């Protein structure tokens, strides 16, 4: 297996292989900038520092050329036209622009929006805001495997529905929604289709024509590009209109004002091109690592439950619940691994993941889930070390767990009257 590595540009030494740091398995949270990408970004911070909006001199022209090259690169990755790409500060802003911008523009046609309960917070919180402004939002349930029920989806469409927003690949459980089918349904009903493709780009083929998307949000830092840059695809034929949310200069054809961050944009363009180039090779290698991780855990640890469909899922994600151990203590035990938990225990309310709850998982299993995000720089040795750690720590916590003891004694935990507190 050809192992890609993060190499320090100056010392030429690998950067991520650092025994003093935890093993990084949180690639759905963010990714390091690929050194090939970084190399292309650097000149635009110093030598080529011009403002792409400066039309009167060579500094501006150089920056503009770089921005337009990157726009073409992102457009190519989405099978779109470069004139359909609007730069934003990230996918959260792109989603805000898409949903608020289109809702405001088309509010005369209707005020109903459809989305899923398992969407990213960027979509859910934007929808909440639109509700406060008088829009009506349907948050559709998903099936137990995390996938949308197409019949229920179509049934939710009303005469006043103007937009539907769907997460292509779920950030917590990695499931891939049937985007082509959703796109067909929405086009037939003349409802605008916004796609959050943040976790899809570079992992599965993304084609705005094939899925008939009208708007699509993408991000730089999930595809080995820099943070602080994203883009919104806005369809030209048939033309989709969005009202600007940020004003001041009329950049990006009036849809998003603000001086363009040339180096970030160059990084996102390069990362998008690389993501498409490496997609098959990455998916194959990462898929093998994911299967190794899953088998290793299942061979060593009983009572584990996979969250979300394994069939319709990107190979980069594994989300597992470990019954009879509590999530936060598990994360604490796994300090040698950088993963994320479905249990957001930092809040006083001990809220388990809303995504797992939407799949109908019990609070206990939702609390004890771990998301493993495997990426371009993950090694087989890291996966093997992770399996060892998981087996050891889950075993240790179960020895501490009265619930595990009761399970071994054959006591049904649901038969017990627990004292609420």
């Amino acid at each position: 297996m050809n192992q890609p590595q993060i190499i320090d540009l100056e010392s030429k030494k690998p950067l991520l292989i650092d025994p003093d740091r935890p093993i990084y398995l949180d690639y759905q949270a963010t990714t390091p900038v690929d050194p090939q990408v970084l190399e292309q970004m650097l000149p635009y911070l110093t030598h080529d520092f011009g403002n792409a909006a400066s039309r009167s001199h060579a500094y501006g022209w150089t920056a503009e050329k770089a921005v337009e090259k990157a726009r073409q690169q992102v457009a190519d990755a989405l099978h779109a036209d470069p004139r359909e790409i609007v730069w934003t500060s990230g996918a959260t802003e792109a989603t805000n622009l898409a949903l608020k911008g289109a809702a405001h523009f088309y509010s005369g046609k209707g005020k109903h929006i459809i989305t899923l309960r398992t969407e990213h917070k960027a979509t859910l919180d934007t929808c909440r805001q639109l509700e406060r402004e008088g829009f009506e939002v349907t948050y559709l349930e998903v099936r137990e495997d995390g996938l949308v029920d197409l019949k229920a989806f179509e049934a939710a469409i009303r005469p006043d529905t103007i937009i539907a927003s769907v997460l292509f690949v779920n950030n917590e459980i990695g499931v891939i929604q049937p985007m082509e089918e959703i796109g067909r349904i929405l086009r037939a009903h003349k409802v605008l289709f916004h796609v959050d493709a943040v976790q899809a780009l570079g992992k599965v083929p993304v084609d705005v024509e094939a899925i008939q998307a009208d708007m699509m949000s993408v991000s730089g830092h999930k595809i080995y590009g820099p943070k602080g840059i994203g883009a919104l695809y806005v369809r030209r034929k048939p033309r989709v209109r969005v009202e600007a949310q940020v004003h001041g200069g009329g950049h990006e054809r009036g849809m998003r004002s603000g001086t363009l961050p040339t180096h970030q944009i160059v990084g996102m363009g390069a990362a998008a091109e690389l993501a498409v180039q490496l997609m098959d090779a990455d998916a194959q290698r990462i898929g093998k690592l994911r299967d190794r991780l899953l088998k290793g855990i299942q061979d060593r640890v009983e009572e584990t439950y996979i969250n979300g469909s394994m069939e319709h899922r990107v190979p980069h994600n594994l989300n597992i619940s470990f019954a009879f151990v509590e999530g936060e203590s598990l994360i604490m035990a796994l300090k040698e691994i950088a993963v994320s938990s479905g249990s957001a225990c930092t809040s006083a309310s001990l809220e388990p993941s809303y995504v797992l709850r939407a799949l109908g998982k019990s609070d206990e299993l939702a609390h004890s889930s771990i998301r493993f995000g495997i990426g371009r720089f993950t090694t087989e040795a890291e996966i093997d070390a992770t399996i060892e750690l998981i087996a050891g720590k889950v075993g240790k916590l179960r020895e501490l767990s009265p619930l595990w003891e009761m399970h071994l004694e054959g006591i049904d935990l649901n038969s017990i009257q627990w004292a609420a507190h």
Partner: protein
Amino acid sequence: MAYSEKVIDHYENPRNVGAMDKDDSGVGTGMVGAPACGDVMRLQIKVNEQGIIEDAKFKTYGCGSAIASSSLVTEWVKGKTLDEAMTIKNSHIAEELELPPVKIHCSVLAEDAIKAAVEDYRSKRGAGHSQAEVAAALVAH
């Protein structure tokens, strides 16, 4: 979540983990909490004929603070009479472990576990407290 060194110490080296025979008349068992809330504590105490807690064991399903709180109380109750053990308050536990505000409920649960274990022991003994235990209780007052 930034934990104090004491929490981390109890979490990494929990004291007195284990189980006692809950049908033993000298053992009191207290189980509090609920799996859906994210923590369940089981505290067991072994009380001798003099009414002194001579051993304590725990098992806890919960976060690091819950594990540390229950581990700590097993140390604290040992050697105490039942009435002395009942004077342990959640505020003492929270203070000792420097628990952040969002984790105060873990110390409340640990206090409840002591009470539940003592009550279980007393109810097993019923009205018929052993002579020695009555004597010890009198002395303690």
